[in-house]
């Protein structure tokens, strides 16, 4: 029997060069999506067509790495067949797993392709072991990606009560507003991650340099204005600055990036199966840089967890490519529950 996975490094790919960059720099697995709204990074020109995906799978498998398919949006009325065909294609291409959020699609996958490995997407928003066990009992899911809203103590409680492998986000843009259930983007544009596979669809985004600074608008709504010396963030509503009772500030959350390098020893102790890196929308250059750092860190923690220390250069390299001017441990390090 193969041993249980521990701290597999799962990296994002929006294109074949990004997949190769991830594999070449030490990813254990790469996750990607088809070129349509069956995945939550549905941007023009991004993602994989049939030929690219087959090439990618061949490349990764030749080096003993895995490829996971994100099918993590919710089938829309009248279009369910597209999501089901995507599951069929995944099985046909010999994907190592599909990452699903919708229970109906899980039922279809479990029934039609019993050998296809199922992972529960973060969009499924399962935060308790009861929820995760439900998905295991009903559909046989073998891994769950936990939403970034749990503290490490809560993760520990989940880990102790389920045999499903757990995957945690380690690095990247934060999207914490009731993970998997956020409709803010729909409010301004009519499209949101779960329905259209995209938060702040590019067709609704406008950037403009004005005498007052660079303005970001989402479907005409001004969501931020940056002075020349300020860092910019993604054009998402949650990270905009709004006027509230005469004051203009980040009324929902500040643009920061998650970076949990220093928690790796704890994650190893809890037996976390995999660490996920965010960013399928990013370029191969980002994937290469981030994968390299995390490979080194995970190798170090596996070698000697007791003496593990975060190399300052790692933070430097990761901060350089991050959204926002600082990084955070997110909810993982939170004294209150």
């Amino acid at each position: 029997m193969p041993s249980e996975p521990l701290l597999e490094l799962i990296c994002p790919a929006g294109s074949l060069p990004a997949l190769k960059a991830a594999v070449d720099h030490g990813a254990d697995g790469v996750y990607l999506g088809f070129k349509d709204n069956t995945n939550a990074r549905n941007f023009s020109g991004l993602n994989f067509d049939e030929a690219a995906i087959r090439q990618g799978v061949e490349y990764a498998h030749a080096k003993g790495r895995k490829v996971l398919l994100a099918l993590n949006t919710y089938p829309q009325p009248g279009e369910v067949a597209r999501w089901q065909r995507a599951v069929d294609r995944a099985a046909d291409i010999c994907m190592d797993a599909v990452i699903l959020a919708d229970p109906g699609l899980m039922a279809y996958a479990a029934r039609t392709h019993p050998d296809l490995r199922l992972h529960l997407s973060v969009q499924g928003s399962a935060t308790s072991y009861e929820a995760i066990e439900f998905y295991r009992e009903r559909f046989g899911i073998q891994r769950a990606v936990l939403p970034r809203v749990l503290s490490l103590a809560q993760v520990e409680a989940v880990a102790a009560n389920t045999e499903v492998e757990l995957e945690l986000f380690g690095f990247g843009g934060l999207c914490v507003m009731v993970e998997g259930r956020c409709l803010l983007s729909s409010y301004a544009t009519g499209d949101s991650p779960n329905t259209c596979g995209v938060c702040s669809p590019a067709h609704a985004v406008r950037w403009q340099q004005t005498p007052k600074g660079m303005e970001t608008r989402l479907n005409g709504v001004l969501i931020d204005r940056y002075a020349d010396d300020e860092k910019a963030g993604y054009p998402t509503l949650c990270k905009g600055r709004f006027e509230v009772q005469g004051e203009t500030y980040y009324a929902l959350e500040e643009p920061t990036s998650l970076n949990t390098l220093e928690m790796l020893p704890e994650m190893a102790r809890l037996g976390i199966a995999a660490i996920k890196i965010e960013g399928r929308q990013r370029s191969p250059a980002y994937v290469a840089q981030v994968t390299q750092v995390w490979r080194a860190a995970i190798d170090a923690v596996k070698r000697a967890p007791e003496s593990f220390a975060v190399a300052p250069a790692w933070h430097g390299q990761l901060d350089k490519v991050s959204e926002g001017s600082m990084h955070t441990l997110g909810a993982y390090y939170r004294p209150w529950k």
Partner: protein
Amino acid sequence: MQLPAIPRPLARVVGALPAFPASLAFSAAGNLAAWPALRGLDWGEVRGRRFCVHVRDLGLKLYFSVGRKGFVPEVASSADVTFTATTEDFVRLGLRLEDPDTLFFNRRLLIEGDTDLGLRVKNMLDGVEFEELTRRLPAGLGQVVTGLRQRAQMQA
């Protein structure tokens, strides 16, 4: 990689050039150097749309579109989407040393106009493997580009 800064007087001269001859020269050079490597991409949705590459430190604006046979210089001084960055950052992007989102966060890259069009082109170019691109560049140029990239990677 540190590219030499553009001398001020030169920047002033280039910035004062009328836009069309510059766009013409840019398209001609692009067709000679890059088009053989890019022609195979799916330009369908992009064809006929007007782009502007605004090289900030040179004060230079290049207008062009993409037709069946390559880059076409545009006379108009408006574009569907405008990319603004410095010479060095454009070169680093071209050599795949830099991630556009990183440059955007750091205010070194600005995309104005049709964001979806801008993203589409960025993603299309990202989807082509660097080695594939350089292999299809005219003889000699491919080696120069590969050499530049390797040198920059070693310095990083």
